[in-house]
């Protein structure tokens, strides 16, 4: 592996204040986003929880939940990890402190604007791209600031070779810009309303090109970058295979972008586009598992530490869920499987095995690793980290299993025919009512996951308020030869 890190080199003056800011924002928005998730899960199980107010109905809070967990929680995790690891991988301070600060405060302002506008019903309706056009413009500006800072830092780097984590970060910066700008192209009608330049199924195609690659390049590639930096650091082992990282990086970024049309299988979108979407989604299994294997095999020789180290526990479960949901995804993209799974809770279960399992657990692993190092303090309640891990894991299992069962049930009951060829379950509501027990199990799973998140918040606050470590040089653990 390349000698991207060496403790022998004099430590430059890294900007860790910006990392701490992103860290704090992550924890705060994580609690908010997951709390809203639990609330809307409750609304599905028990409709009076919609509260009879326009601002609190499911239709307005659901986009708030998705935006909060994707862009506020996961987004801030990415920025936390990128600002920390980039400086160390490139042996330089970030290109510009001003750009770092503009990025941070701009991004948080966008989140606040989203949290106000979405409950007011101000939306463009495209999933994960709901925010109204003025906020879209602001996102573009802040992303340019981030990109400028990012590439500026690469330009002034003190290490020639770009470590694999940087490749994945780079694909995140570039692709999100392209996706966001194209999918947001719209003609404004008023300050809060606009209509897309694309129409009908073409608009759907562009949206799912965006939507699926928001999963690919917002929730996958930057987190693979985090995996490539923080997993070897936590395991104190070098990455398993350099060659595998090259192959799976290029295959992943090239193949992912084609997968969007699997969201439109059996629609009136031209068949050739549906077929391309399906074929590339299936091929995506290979580079996804390349990443998973490179992550898991990095732990070779360190598996025993899994018993004691909550950070590795989080990371291993994260990578395992990554492997599982990237197996499930291609399967669900097969036309006939999609015919059953589409529109059902199975999709919701699939998304959350990726979101709670891969993104969430990778985030917690990274954040627990960073916490003592950033603040130079011992974790206040180490046992609570392990409890958090178990609560989160049980929560995910309850969530995904209940949604799988509910999804298969409704998918099969919607299509079931009786002996005379008529619908076996002609009353839609009957099927809805049969799902209720599973909706309650999902609520319970969500509550467990949220409880873990709140315990993490508590642990973070107590750790930061705790006494500083005596030996200040111990702030940065010795780096493994990655």
């Amino acid at each position, binding site marked *: 592996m390349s000698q991207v890190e060496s403790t022998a080199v004099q430590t430059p003056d890294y900007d860790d204040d910006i990392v701490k800011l992103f860290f704090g924002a992550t924890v705060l928005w994580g609690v908010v986003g997951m709390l809203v998730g639990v609330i809307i899960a409750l609304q599905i199980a028990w409709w009076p929880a919609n509260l009879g107010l326009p601002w609190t109905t499911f239709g307005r809070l659901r986009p708030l939940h998705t935006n909060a967990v994707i862009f506020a929680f996961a987004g801030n995790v990415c920025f936390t990890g990128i600002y920390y690891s980039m400086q160390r991988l490139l042996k330089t301070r970030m290109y510009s402190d001003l750009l770092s600060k503009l990025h941070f405060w701009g991004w948080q302002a966008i989140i606040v604007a989203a949290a106000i506008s979405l409950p007011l019903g101000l939306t463009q309706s495209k999933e994960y791209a709901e925010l109204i056009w003025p906020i879209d413009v602001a996102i573009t500006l802040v992303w340019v600031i981030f990109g400028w800072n990012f590439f500026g830092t690469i330009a002034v780097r003190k290490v020639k070779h770009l470590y694999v984590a940087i490749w994945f970060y780079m694909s995140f910066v570039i692709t999100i810009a392209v996706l966001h700008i194209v999918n947001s192209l719209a003609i404004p009608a008023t300050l809060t309303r606009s209509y897309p330049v694309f129409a009908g199924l073409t608009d759907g195609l562009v949206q799912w090109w965006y939507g699926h690659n928001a999963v690919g390049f917002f929730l996958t590639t930057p987190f693979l970058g985090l995996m490539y930096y923080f997993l070897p650091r936590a395991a104190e082992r070098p990455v398993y295979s350099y060659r595998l990282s090259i192959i799976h990086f290029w295959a992943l970024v090239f193949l992912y*972008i084609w997968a969007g049309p699997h969201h439109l299988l059996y*629609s009136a979108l031209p068949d050739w586009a549906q077929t391309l979407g399906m074929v590339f989604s299936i091929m995506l299994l290979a580079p996804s598992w390349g990443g998973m294997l490179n992550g898991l095999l990095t732990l070779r020789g360190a598996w025993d530490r899994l018993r004691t180290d909550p950070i590795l526990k989080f990371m291993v479960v994260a990578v395992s869920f990554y492997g599982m949901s990237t197996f499930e995804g291609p399967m669900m993209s097969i036309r006939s499987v999609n015919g059953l799974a589409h529109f059902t809770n199975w999709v919701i279960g699939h998304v959350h095995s990726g979101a709670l399992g891969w993104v969430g657990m990778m985030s917690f692993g990274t954040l627990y690793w960073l916490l003592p190092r950033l603040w130079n303090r011992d974790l206040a309640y180490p046992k609570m980290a392990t409890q958090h891990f178990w609560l989160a894991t049980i929560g995910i299992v309850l969530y995904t299993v209940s949604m799988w069962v509910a999804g298969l049930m409704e998918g099969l009951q919607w299509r079931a025919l009786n002996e005379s060829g008529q619908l076996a379950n002609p009353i839609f509501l009957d099927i809805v009512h049969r799902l209720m027990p599973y909706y309650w199990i999902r609520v319970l799973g969500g509550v467990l996951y949220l409880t873990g998140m709140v315990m993490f918040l508590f642990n973070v606050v107590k750790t930061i308020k705790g006494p500083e470590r005596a030996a200040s040089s111990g702030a940065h653990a010795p780096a493994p030869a990655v």
Partner: protein
Amino acid sequence: MTNENKSQESEAAYGSFHRRFLEGKGAVFAVATTIAILIGGIVEIVPMYTAGAGPETADWVTPYTPLEVAGRDIYIREGCYLCHSQWVRPMRAEVLRYGEWSRAPEYQYDRPFLLGSRRMGPDLHRLAQKYPDAWHYEHMRDPRSTSPGSVMPSYPWLLDATVDAGDVQASVRALRKSGVPYTDADVDGVAASIAGQGQQIVASLAGAGIQTEADREIVALIAYLQRLGREGKAYLPNQGGGGG
């Protein structure tokens, strides 16, 4: 030379290529990544605009009326599309449950598209004329009054909130700019069109004993819901199973 040595050597050679040509050059790496991520999108999206490869259009579908545009914006604001699809798939059970499967031209004026991704409730693409206007009025006020056991939230505020004709005119103007073939007369006549179509719905509601005004949001939403799939319902059954 053992096999192990060979594989180590090839890995080193492999790596040195990647290292020399990409990893040392940030700009080159960025350009290569950009090219890699652009190809799939270009191949899938650009042909939608080249002859023959995109979704079909047809003249049996007409643009939404101003009142339907207003209703559609309410549908979007309330997030209806998060629980209801507008997409009947070409499968026996779906056609039995909802009606004709959805054809490409039926979406040609949909900006944004509202196919949906989840069916917490039933599909709505063949909703037109399935229920009377009064049913929709009561259903939005309290879904359980018309559908016992429904888990849908109530939307009583739609009964009082009003539609601003000037606002709808701005929408129609923007939609026209984006490519929907509204005429000057359409844009100028938004207020009159809203009042005219609204009055019909008010009259139909009055027939069921419901008193309301033509400018209420519920009236616009009913106009939109009664439009969903209407043209397809009229046109498709006469096409001998083929259709647009």
